[in-house]
């Protein structure tokens, strides 16, 4: 099953379950408070996911390692390489 198909299936199942409970075609079976919460759930989950995404990307951005040492090491090795290659007869 492709990822798209997985998502569609998941959304269909969750959406169907939510619609069945919210619109309640078989008559009232949930307390009013519960029904109000359920009605708002999709929007609430969407907003929660949005916040999670922003927080995650923000955290990962902030902790993205900046490899100053790697760059300096590379510079030093480039100089060393130039010298060694010249000694071995390499003509730049």
């Amino acid at each position: 099953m492709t990822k798209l198909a997985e998502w569609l299936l998941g959304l269909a199942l969750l959406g169907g379950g939510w619609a069945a409970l919210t619109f309640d075609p078989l008559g009232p079976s949930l307390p009013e408070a519960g029904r109000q919460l359920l009605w708002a759930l999709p929007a609430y989950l969407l907003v929660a996911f949005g916040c999670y995404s922003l927080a995650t990307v923000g955290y990962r951005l902030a902790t993205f390692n900046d490899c100053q040492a790697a760059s300096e090491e590379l510079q030093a090795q480039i100089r060393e390489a130039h010298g060694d290659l010249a000694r071995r007869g390499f003509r730049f």
Partner: protein
Amino acid sequence: MFAPCRAQAVRADTFILRAAAGGIVGGEASTSCRRGASNMASGEGAERRRGDRYSVLLPTYNERENLPLIVWLLVRYFDESGFDYEIIVIDDGSPDGTLEVAKQLEQIYGSDKILLRPRAKKLGLGTAYIHGIQHATGNFVIIMDADLSHHPKFIPEFIKKQKEGNYDVVSGTRYRGDGGVFGWDLRRKLISRGANFVTQVLLRPGASDLTGSFRLYRKEVLQKLVEKCVSKGYVFQMEMIVRARQLNYSIGEVPITFVDRVYGESKLGGNEIVSFLKGLLHLFATT
């Protein structure tokens, strides 16, 4: 010990040529010579086959400045680690004379270590890999960038990781452990992390860095994957990992540092982002 072997091999070759030209009489003699040479070769070859051999593929285009440096680093770290290796330089007809530089390196380090397999013009990364694999005598293939953004010092770590878990693929990651990047501004880092997040949510690939191109593959695994992949650019590297998961290959990760010295020249523009998203959606819908 090495020299007599080579001499034997050369003699066998010329004998075979003469045998082919001369017919049956030459054939008998060449068989015995070949057997002799091939006993030597298979003796040595068997020793080498028992160990692992790592073929490094270096597709190059206008890397006249960087090629000697990357080769020097590769030789240094491989010699230090003692692993058997070869470096295959696949130059796509660079106008700046990269091939001449490669020939000099072949002179210095030997044509058993530096293999030149150039192509006439710029033909793309996927075909460069295929071309490289065809000439690789190793059982493992390492792909990397030739512009010094990938550092050969991580290759022994890749090899160690591969042996640890018997992985089919080992991928270098900039996003985990002490991996990271140098030379990117905040905007570039944000795009990178953002794109990676979207990719993780949509594809759940089981690997942290999908657009990275510093990886170790078993040769037959790389061959299989390149045949199956259809995308270009960043998405090509992503597709390789996604297809590897599909085919149930095991993937290990090693943190790497990525030193970007060309970012100043090649900004990541709207076009690249759009084509990345298109490619991502295509993978989302088809894998």
